[in-house]
């Protein structure tokens, strides 16, 4: 299955992106970018509840493929976007939530590192390995 994780910072520039298979990365960039609009819309609608695990079910976006885009935003407006293949019906909402939670935790670990400047691309090996393990789990 095609899965992509993209982390985008406050100003919506990507902090981290990982996808399997890797050749479709550009497409995922585009997809995530378009989905950011929906994310922002939901954020503004939410009001007080900042931390949110939303689901963007795009259904059949293109005739050739269909996938689901899930979003998650942290209190500091860092957005996690996950794109999964719709054919992967085994993925339930709970699992998505738990994956986002893990992502969030790993992200905070990265943040705790004093050598990491917020806004840098994430180069943490631990983060990478966590993401990889999650993707392996899904695929």
């Amino acid at each position, binding site marked *: 299955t095609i899965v992509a994780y993209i982390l985008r910072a406050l100003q919506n520039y990507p902090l981290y992106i990982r996808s399997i298979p890797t050749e479709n990365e550009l497409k995922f960039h585009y997809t995530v970018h378009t989905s950011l609009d929906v994310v922002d819309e939901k954020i503004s609608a939410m009001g007080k*509840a*900042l*931390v*949110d*695990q939303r689901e963007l079910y795009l259904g059949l976006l293109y005739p050739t493929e269909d996938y689901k885009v899930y979003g998650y935003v*942290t*209190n500091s407006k860092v957005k996690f976007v996950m794109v999964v293949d719709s054919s992967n019906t085994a993925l339930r909402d709970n699992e998505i939530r738990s994956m986002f*939670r*893990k992502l*969030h*935790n*790993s992200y*905070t*670990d990265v943040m*705790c*590192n*004093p*050598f*990491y400047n917020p806004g840098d691309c994430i*180069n*943490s*090996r*631990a983060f990478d*390995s*966590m993401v990889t393990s999650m993707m392996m789990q899904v695929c």
Partner: protein
Amino acid sequence: MEGLTLSEAEQRYYCDLFAYCDTESTKKVAPNGRVLELFRAAQLPSEVVLQIMELCGATRLGYFGRSQFYIALKLVAVAQSGLPLRVESLNTVKDLPLPRFVGPKNEQELRHTALYSSDADNSTSYSGVIPPPPGRVQVKKGSVSHDAVQQRTSTDQQESTSPVVSPQQSPPTSPHIWRKHHRHSSGGNNERPIAGPGPLWTPFSEAQPGASTTGDPIWSGHSPPPHQENWVSFADTPPTSALLAMHPASVQDQTTVRTVASATTANEIRRQSSSYDDPWKITDEQRQYYVNQFKTIQPDLNGFIPGSAAKEFFTKSKLPILELSHIWELSDFDKDGALTLDEFCAAFHLVVARKNGYDLPEKLPESLMPKLIDLEDTTEVGDQSGEVGYSSSPAEAPPSKSPSMPSLNQTWPELNQSSEDTAIVHPVPIRMTPSKIHMQEMELKRSGSDHANPTSPLLVKPPDLSEDNKMSTSKFVAGNTVADGYSSSDSYTSDPEQIGSTVTRQRSHSGTSPDNTAPPPPPPRPHPSHSRSSSLDMNRSFTVTPGQQQAGVAYPPAVPPRPQPTQGAGPHVHRPVDAEGLIAHTSTSPQQIPEQPNFADFSQFEALVASGVNEEEEEEIETHSEVLQVEKPSDSSGSLRVAKAESRIEDKAAVNVPVNSGKGTTPLAPPPKPIRRRLKSEDELRPEVEEHTQKTGVIAAVLASQPSIPRSVGKDKKAIQASIRRNKETNTVLARLNSELQQQLKDVLEERISLEVQLEQLRPFSHL
């Protein structure tokens, strides 16, 4: 294929190589991929490799059997020494060096190879040197000999003068002819340099020559220490011409020495090598040095070094930021952004190792793991790692991720201290006072709740509730935590952890707060009652009740500021019909509950004591809230408040007495009934809420009815004692009330369950 005679060293070496290639553990066939990789590492031109493969018969067979593999290896050796590839050369060439392979190996091996690879490299500066993968000449067991060692030593000295430059190239790719035995002997040296980082980052070089000489004797006379893993010999940069010269001699020496020495010294080697098994172990002198460095940053050995200070410090080591970042990731075990002494030592050690050319491990080696003493989840890494608070003492605070209820039990004392930290919803300004009165009250409450809890079949995560009950009753302050607990109990299992982790750093909150703040919406409940109930301080005082809690899940059970006694009492929630006069009263002043001095109501209540069960409950609620308020004043204000409280208690006590007598300990049956009368079937919790609001209203009314509390009375010692007595009585009453409410809650929840079941049954029909 001709028979192949291998020397002992070769035998062993090939065996290990075969094992290395034998990724499928077939023990017979080495998959071609691995083998080819190996051969590529031999740095032979490809046609030579092909030729070798053909010669050994692998191309014929299509795979590398053990014999083919051995032959191939031998041919590689032949090729590497420049001899033409001939089958005959297999057996005829004597003193053939073992084939050399250059190529990356996994880091584990590298570390060990690094361990054994010092030699001349050691003698030169270690700064940023000896790049990991391609750089090392591995020593396979095999070959150290006395003579070789001594020769090596001399060459070591020679090499030490060789420019420091060469080892400093990053991964040297050129094949080198460093003899493995050479490498091997210096294997022990690596430990030494690491052992002596010295006060400076750079001048390692001086350590080296000494180290290498000291290291050598160890190896002399020993066969090379048993290697830990499959190694492939790596070539290395430093000039080798000198070594080449000695090589033929040493090879012979090897053979002779090997055969002699191996048996006797094997054990010794093993013993010694076991100390080298763990290249990451910190020696005492290292540790002392690290500790001293720690002290320069943070004099308190039990304290933390904040991330920024650590960053500065480690940046001085001139390692690239990326690597420092990785080191930090490895060493900050509890992921709190600060380094304890152990973590700091681990980080320092890693930095030193890195500067010496060791590769950074992917995971923190065991010997570097900080000793987490009291943490329950010590060994859990990553997310699960105990999130120790910033003070060293909370080491005993269970990490936030430990969801066990017992941990909550243990941590509620910490919750006491950290009640302000919980601050997820509201900071509760009340401090848990050590005053006896309050402790007793708390004890009473807790015991009351204890009574209630076992009996109540609390639906929503009973353990949470009981815990929360205990916490809330005993703390009153813990409104926040309770709220969190409830909201979490509604939604996530991680919340108890959160409650328990109040001591811990915010990351735990941030990690779990997303869950907390987005709990599943509470079951449909009418707003008015909820808002009213939440506006009432009944929420605060009765955070125990989950039903109510669910209603007020969004409301911070914070303690509102003590309003001044307002006699009038404000608007009120509708009151059940049960206690007429009382109802009227309560309806007038439900929101006055928090008002402390409003004991005017109490006298009114007193008048209505006879009205019935509900009154008693209400009164109990009153007393409960009153006690609450008693606590608060005493907590915050002191004598004056105490005086007020006493006077309040006096009044209340008077009321309590008659009521107490009139009531049994389990008046649950009557109260629910009247409530249910009003109840609409869908709305289970409303009655409870309403009842609570009634009760709060009653209390408020009672409170309000006591206009002027003689404050001067409090100064009287006798009065104080009397008030204490009354307080105690009030406490008992309230405790009883609490238990009754618990029972009510239980009943209501049962109702709710039944309704939900009905709903479920009906639902399928709706889908048709």
